[in-house]
């Protein structure tokens, strides 16, 4: 069973001070975990500690039950990682760069050829004979992702795997990760919350070095208080009519002649006044909280934690 086990992990830098403070989480078995947080929260630092690019100040980081500080060869044996912006040697061709990784992963010659062909197809890699130094940023990122996937490791640590990709390539990677999570354990760092929402089952939110939330994606969305209301009228209502709501309504979005989305402060009092106001405008077919996207829930959660972050969640 693939596993990622982080126990009381801390990391402090001489100049920057503590970046991770007593972070603990454990996942076992296939699935995808979104690792979210603002810049500087400590997401990449966690990944670097997991693969041994950094040494922890305290705590432990285990992959498949093995600690990289004790035996990096064994601990990373079944792990693929894409962290920051990996760059193969510019003089190497795409095939050579991937072949080197395959050899280090001790794949047979036939196994390497098979894997390169598979990943060339799945990730729409650039021509294999092209020099890595001549690749675009997006092409280089796909080659780096292919390097992480070569040999089909059961644990994948992916840091912004689609940051340099165009929308079509992002969909390609998202779909691939969606397939891979069925029999791999993926820890996915991304600022593209939509990608996390699409791919991941669980989400882990980090803020200023602390885990502030650990839960299933749908629970995170459900937990956040909605600050948007969807109102559907039985007959058309002009947009201008909402000016009568005054300060209670922050913004009005017209979804159709009958259907509007209203932003408000989330309080029950304002909700009651808005409902009464809507009834004065005309008969209502539906009045409900707008369905939140993970992104909204994430932003609300971070905005609601100005002090020392507290852990919530059930994961």
């Amino acid at each position: 069973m693939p596993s990622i086990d982080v126990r009381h992990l801390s990391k402090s830098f001489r100049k920057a001070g503590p970046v991770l403070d007593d972070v603990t989480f454990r996942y076992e078995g296939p699935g995808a975990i979104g690792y979210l947080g603002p810049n500087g929260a400590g997401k990449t630092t966690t990944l670097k500690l997991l693969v041994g690019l950094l040494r922890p100040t305290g705590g432990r980081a285990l992959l498949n039950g093995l600690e990289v500080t004790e035996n990096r060869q064994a601990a990373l044996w079944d792990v693929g990682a894409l962290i920051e912006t990996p760059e193969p040697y510019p003089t190497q061709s795409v095939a050579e760069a991937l072949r080197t990784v395959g050899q280090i992963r001790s794949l047979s010659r036939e196994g390497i050829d098979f894997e390169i062909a598979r990943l060339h197809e799945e990730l729409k890699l650039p021509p294999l004979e092209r020099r890595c130094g001549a690749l675009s940023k997006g092409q280089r990122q796909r080659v780096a992702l292919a390097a992480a996937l070569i040999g089909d490791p059961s644990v994948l640590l992916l840091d912004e795997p689609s940051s340099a990709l165009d929308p079509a390539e992002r969909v390609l990677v998202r779909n691939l990760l969606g397939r891979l999570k069925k029999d791999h354990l993926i820890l996915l760092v991304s600022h593209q919350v939509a990608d996390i929402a699409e791919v991941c089952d669980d989400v882990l939110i980090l803020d200023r070095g602390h885990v502030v939330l650990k839960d299933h994606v749908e629970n995170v969305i459900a937990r956040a208080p909605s600050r948007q209301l969807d109102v559907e009228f039985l007959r058309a209502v002009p947009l201008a009519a909402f000016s009568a709501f005054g300060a209670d309504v922050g913004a009005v979005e017209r979804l159709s002649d009958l259907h509007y989305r209203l932003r408000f402060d989330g309080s029950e009092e304002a909700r009651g006044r808005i409902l009464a106001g809507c009834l004065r405008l005309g008969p209502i077919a539906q009045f409900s909280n707008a369905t939140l996207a993970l992104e909204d829930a994430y932003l609300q959660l971070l905005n609601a934690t100005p002090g020392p972050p507290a852990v919530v969640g059930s994961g």
Partner: protein
Amino acid sequence: MTERPTRSRPNELRQWYAVVTSQVSHYLRSYRFLGLLGFIVLISAVTILLELQSGVTLVRAVQLYSYSEYLSNFYQWGNLWIFMGAAFFAGDALSVDFSTGTGYYMLVLPIHRRTLLAGRYVSATLAILAILVIFFVIGILGGAYFFGIGDVPWLKVGITFGLYVVLTLAAVSVAFCISAVVRSPSAGVLTTILTLYVGFMTLETTVELTGQEPWFSLNYAGNGIPNVLDIDFSHVAELPVGTGQYTTLWTAYPSEGAVIISAYVVVFFLLSLFLYNRKESTG
């Protein structure tokens, strides 16, 4: 899903070989290899052309009518070429992992850092030796013109080359150590050449002025290597500096040089291994 590819258990020797092959091919295709090779060939060719201009008779007399003496003088350049090669190929061999994306490509793989270091160490050494072989061949061909190919002192040439191989290992060890400390690759290259050549040479001169033998210097030890071929070798020489005073100039015995160089190989290789293992990717 596709079937997972079969993988044998990690084999450090196989991983080391993979690093060597990829690194050597990278070096041989790089502009710095071609540039350094071109530069060395040019300097060597110009040297021989100038000798040709002087005439065979004069060259033979200056070189004490000895093929061996000729090669001893020609191979004096070996030190500089090796130090330049070490700076070019080893000066940034480890720092690239902590300042460029190369580290994020290689250091996340299931490979011990010692294996990566050993692979790069051998690769840098091979790249320098490839240039050194060409330099040696040019020397032999040049000498053959003046003294005849039948007189090549093959044994002495072999010993000299062997000692230069050890010097290459020492220079690469020092360069790796510097590369494991400095952050920027270009700073690694520059610091290596400054340390190996300018730094050691300055220290040597200073120490010699006090009448002491600069036995600690890698440059001094390396300069002793072509003395294997020297037929007119003296370990100590007094040089007049005016006002009736003399300064002492030291030249290392080849055997003495070999010991100093070997010490550098061991100490600096172990030090670079220790430093590289401890280095973190904080960038």
